[in-house]
């Protein structure tokens, strides 16, 4: 029978299938971080269990780590306890850990791919919803809860109920200045935050094939914001070129065998998806969110919508609440929304290409007076690469803060937070109430829009900026 990509990967991992039971799936890679693992290790201890496959498990520290003064003890005692707990758990159970200060440390979803541990056709799990990022390689990757983390640690398997499949076909080419982030925000606005529920999304079509691996990760990363179980992109030469030579990529005969297998990981021509959505890439433009869920977005050129324009009563109510929280009024042009803070980083847009594109916009320009801009690389490796390319200098010369790697203001578990009522343009993935700090207001944007917004002080795209020579005039002159 003709099968989709997701179905092929699933089938290849079934350890046990029995009538009336969920399939038991083998897990090829288990990523751990400090927030969702302590209670799982605790459970193992209580039941006298071991980590079954330490060779398929890896941990890093990201959510709580400070982005300043990382050589000093962490000020917040609770954050410190959580990191110390992870260190002790990894030591006790023999799990490889990249702690703060290590060259491989970083946001878990940046670290896995960059080490070459995420490969096509694998099952990848992590106690973190943005595990969908790894689907960019044609892996079936999903976020799990702490009970499931414990289950995978103990058994290297997970009982899973089947999913439905949805094709998101993006035809045509993205226009100049429109990025993967704009694309995925537009997809979520189209299908809604619950639209992907129960589905594994497969992104396909010309616009997707043309994306770099990093841009594909941005797209897959946000699948969860559409409610999907996972997002996937079929592996191709772009994928293989990215993987080749990485630390954990196969070598020699294994490489050839792997590529031969990976090439089979495509949806069969006559396979049927449960749902199909078609998007015309040529109609897309820079996209920003105006509300408090990632589905509440609109083109930057648009205005804040009127809640009354929503037919669905619960959407209308949600829009009313969102505008109140966000301090916006219906009809206000989005380009007039002024921000206090700009955040470039996270597992969505904290990779080297993201930093490059933000730096390109900032080069020779200044962050507007009264705007604070934080640039937080997704991993130490990304940071080192950026320094090698001189990007850090571009950021600091523009008046932005160049920070240490971690999740940072994406969720504000460390001191990087918005104050109540403060407004940010953020390259992260969630604009939920209070996500970036109590009372903080978040607009999700691409790195380019983030950088342009920093310069103007209001939501803006690079195309809105005047020639660099004009902007160079020192502020206040």
């Amino acid at each position, binding site marked *: 029978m003709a099968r989709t990509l997701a179905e092929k990967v699933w089938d290849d991992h079934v350890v046990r299938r029995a009538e009336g039971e969920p399939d038991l799936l083998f897990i090829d890679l288990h990523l751990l971080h400090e927030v969702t693992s302590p209670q799982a290790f605790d459970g193992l201890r209580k039941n006298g269990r071991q980590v079954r496959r330490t060779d398929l498990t890896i941990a890093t520290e990201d959510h709580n780590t400070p982005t300043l003064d990382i050589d000093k003890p962490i000020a*917040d005692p609770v*954050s410190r306890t959580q990191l110390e707990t992870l260190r002790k758990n990894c030591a006790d159970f023999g799990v490889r850990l990249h702690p703060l200060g290590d060259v491989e440390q970083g946001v878990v979803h940046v670290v896995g791919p960059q080490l070459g541990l995420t490969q096509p056709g694998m099952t990848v799990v992590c106690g973190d919803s943005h595990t969908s990022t790894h689907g960019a390689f044609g892996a079936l990757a999903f976020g*799990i809860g702490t009970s499931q983390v414990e289950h995978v640690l103990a*058994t290297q398997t997970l009982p899973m109920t089947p999913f439905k499949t949805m094709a998101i076909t993006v035809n045509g080419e993205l226009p100049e200045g429109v990025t993967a982030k704009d694309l995925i925000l537009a997809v979520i606005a189209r299908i809604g935050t619950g639209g992907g529920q129960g589905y594994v999304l497969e992104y396909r079509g010309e616009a997707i094939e043309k994306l770099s691996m990093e841009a594909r990760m941005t797209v897959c990363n946000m699948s969860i914001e559409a409610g999907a179980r996972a997002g996937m992109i079929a592996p191709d030469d772009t994928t293989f070129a990215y993987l080749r030579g990485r630390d954990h990529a196969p070598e020699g005969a294994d490489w050839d065998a792997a590529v031969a*297998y990976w090439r089979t990981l495509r949806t069969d021509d006559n396979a049927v998806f449960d749902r199909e959505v078609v998007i015309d890439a040529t109609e897309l433009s820079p996209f920003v969110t105006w509300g408090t869920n990632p589905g509440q977005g609109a083109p930057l050129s648009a205005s804040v919508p009127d809640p009354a324009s929503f037919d669905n009563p619960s959407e209308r109510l949600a829009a009313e609440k969102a505008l109140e929280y966000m301090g916006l009024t219906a009809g206000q042009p989005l380009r007039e929304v002024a921000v206090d803070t700009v955040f470039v980083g996270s597992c969505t847009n904290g990779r080297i290409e993201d930093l490059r594109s933000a730096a390109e916009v900032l080069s020779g320009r200044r962050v507007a007076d009264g705007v604070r801009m934080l640039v937080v690389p997704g991993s130490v490796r990304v940071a080192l690469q950026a320094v090698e390319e001189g990007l850090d200098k571009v950021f600091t010369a523009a008046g932005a803060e160049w920070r240490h790697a971690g999740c940072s203001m994406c969720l504000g578990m460390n001191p990087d937070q918005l104050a109540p009522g403060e407004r940010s343009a953020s390259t992260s993935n969630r604009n939920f109430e209070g996500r970036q700090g109590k009372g903080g207001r978040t607009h999700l944007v691409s790195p380019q829009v983030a950088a342009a917004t920093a310069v103007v002080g209001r939501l803006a795209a690079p195309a809105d900026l005047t020639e660099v020579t004009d902007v160079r005039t020192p502020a206040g002159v």
Partner: protein
Amino acid sequence: MEAFTTHTGRAVPLRRSNVDTDQIIPAHWLKKVTRDGFEDGLFEAWRKDEEFVLNRPERAGATVLVAGPDFGTGSSREHAVWALQNYGFKTVISSRFADIFRGNSLKNGLLTVVLPQETVDALWELTEADPTAEVTVDLVARKVLAPGVEAAFELDENARWRLLEGLDDISITLRHEDDIAAYEANRPSFTPRTQVA
């Protein structure tokens, strides 16, 4: 895991859709390394408002949460389930739950019940008009009962069995050790290892 057969209690009508896990339990609570003590973090931001439904004296001791659609969206944090349970909720009713949240809830014995929005509306109206009204969630009969409301709900047989028996997944899976070992023996050699065994 505590078994769930049938539960009767007073309800909290939560007229909000898209209640994400950051609202259920804000991130700063995630620093705890235990499974208990999350009750004060539940809906923390909203609870600052005295008028918030959970703060109303007549809702004290309620155990059934009746929520709007798309409850539990966002992060995978199981803490959201623990917070609801620590606070005293035994069951949550909504017309639609986010997948990960739903999975987490059922693994912890918090029964998430999917009912059509009209039934949720009816439960809202009932429990808003009469805070003492009791709602029964009967997993054996797969029914929700309240004055003037009777609605059947679906739950897949396996999840239901585990809840009814209070069985934990790991011990069930470990019965299939032979299958796991057989699968492991056949994995291709090119699959990556995080460390050399």
